[in-house]
């Protein structure tokens, strides 16, 4: 009896001391996000995507690109909605310019970034992400104040997410 107990305890001790140290997905997300200027945004965005639990840095970059795309698409919808009821010519002009800028993000920057990540030419992902951040910022700057920008929060979200993408893609250089 004592021998059995001893063996069970011994096995338990061995099992626990020999537990392999697992490099958890959240460790990689944290180390990666620490290298971006928006840690919290980065972490919450990546963790929200189920793919992140088994992604390497390139995979995380891909997720970041997808999230920029989603946010930019939502913002574009917001802009086209606002265009329908915009009367002020300055507002109209700014919103129309923003449509072009957001189209550039969705139709050019993001596809280029994803292809660059997948094929191992990360500098094009970095430059696309930089451009996406600039497009969002340029859109925000284009409002004459008055009238003020009706999409400040969205522009900031896209800008910041793009900056996160830029930082993660830079890790692949």
């Amino acid at each position: 009896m004592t021998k059995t107990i001893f063996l069970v305890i011994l096995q338990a001790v061995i099992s626990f001391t020999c537990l392999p140290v697992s490099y958890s997905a959240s460790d990689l997300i944290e180390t990666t996000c620490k290298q971006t200027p928006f840690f919290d945004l980065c972490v919450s965005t990546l963790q929200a995507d189920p793919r992140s639990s088994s992604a390497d840095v390139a995979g995380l970059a891909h997720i970041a690109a997808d999230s920029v795309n989603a946010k930019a698409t939502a913002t574009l919808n917001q802009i086209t909605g606002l265009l329908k009821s915009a009367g002020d010519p300055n507002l109209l002009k700014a919103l129309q310019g923003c449509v072009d800028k957001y189209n550039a993000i969705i139709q050019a920057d993001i596809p280029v970034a994803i292809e660059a990540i997948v094929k191992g030419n990360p500098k094009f992902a970095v430059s696309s992400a930089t451009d996406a951040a600039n497009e969002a910022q340029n859109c925000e700057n284009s409002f004459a104040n008055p009238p003020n920008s009706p999409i400040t929060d969205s522009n900031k979200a896209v800008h910041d997410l793009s900056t996160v993408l830029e930082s993660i893609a830079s890790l692949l250089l």
Partner: protein
Amino acid sequence: MQNMANSKVGFFLFFALLVGHGIVELEASHHVFKNLQTVQSTASTNQPYRTGYHFQPPRNWINGLMVYKGLYHLFYQYNPKGAVWGNIVWAHSTSKDLVNWTPHDPAIYPSQPSDINGCWSGSATLLPGGKPAIIYTGIDTKNSQVQNLATPKNLSDPYLREWIKSPKNPLMQPTSQNQINASSFRDPTTAWLGPDKKWRVIIGSKINRQGLAILYKSKDFVNWVQAQTPLHSAKDTGMWECPDFFPVSVSGQNGVDTSLTGPSVKHVFKVSLDDTKHEYYTIGSYDNVKDIYKPDKGSVESDSGLRYDYGKFYASKTFLDSVKNRRILWGWINESSSVADDIKKGWAGVHVIPRKLWLAKSGKQLTQWPVAEIEKLRANHVSLSSKLLKGGSVIKVPGVTAAQADVDISFEISDFKKAEVLKPSWTNPQLLCSQKGASVKGSLGPFGLLVLASKDLKENTAVFFRIFKGQNKYVVLMCSDQSRSSLNQDNDKTTYGAFLDVDPLRQLSLRSLIDHSIVESFGGGGKACITARVYPNLAINNAAHLYIFNNGSEAVKIAKLNAWSMKTAKVN
């Protein structure tokens, strides 16, 4: 030992390429770019930024070149579907004079498992018998970077329009044995012959943060064996793209065969740095028995090293023009505009005017100068000589089409007493130019040119010099200041700078090639070169003007000025 084969009919000289990538057959309709078709069709008909004499395609993206000569052949990475990077194929143009170009169908595009996901950069080599061969990076079915061979289908076609790929592709690839990183293995160079009659080629790579030039050798150009050690490597430089390795004559300006070694030459090793999108080169010696390159003592191996061009310039490549005995440098100039603007105008990317390249007399750097052929576009010659340029003055240069011009000016400085002292901490010329732009008054400088300037100077691009008193000698700072180049705030208006080594400092020359949205400047006869992209709102076409300015307190003398309108070339 040398000897690339010479043939009277086609003496081909190849050179390089760029980074890029392509996609499956152009009909891959489900590819992400399908939406770009509609965006493209609305491209603006108003095109104030298209160049008159710099190479660019009618539409879309270019980012590299490979020149292959006899007839000069330019192969470049091209996206037929949009004004961004993607769907890359090898577009092809030929020229008799490096000035006017004839387009042909794309030469290389995805067609084998070893390049089905992209035909990226590569180089051409002239094999004995006058046969060109291209080795290029393909992206295979697993998205790995591999190296492939293509040769002309029909050697008697002077335009070399069709190319066939080796059934043995890929010839070089990452394996579990060689442990080469499959996403860091690209841009094979022009090959050269060693004393053992084996060809050598280098391919850019990295291990962690160490940049590498992996060396392969071959007897037959098909079977390649990796050398035990890389040709060269450097710590902390990141991925090495577009390596280029070639000899330069120790005296004179002539180019020499890529395989030449011995006391009459030094070797140049250049890479494009993925991390910073700048290039750097070193000058050194090549041990062709051990196959090791060693840069000369004092060489700087980093982003702070010597550059061909201190502005917007990347993915460059040289080739030997054996007809005119010169080594020629090509470079890719990307846009400084937003992608939204690129889509609107329907194109992105231009090339510099090809430059002759040779070792400076000091032996410590290279000198470049636009090929002489470009001068045949000159017209409406305007000149000035021996004119005093007082401090605070601006002089207009009339009579030339300021948006499409070639300007060459030299200044004479006689009194250096008032030169500002150069602080020892001022080691970064780009930063120094950003802090001391054209509008910051100085003592001996800033003086130079205001190009693509609006009448009220609200918009202008300033290319100028400042002279400082350094430790034991005078130091010349050359700047290209884009901060006021355009009222459009969406552009990248970064200022560029370089230190210019001119000794003795009596005359300071500056040449600028101006072409609507590109300003290529050469200081000191080509010892420092800076290329910039600008997109004025006002200073376009006939509303663009050219001035000489001096915003320093001290007068300088214009020894001579020559300016010309540049005729429009046929670039495609």
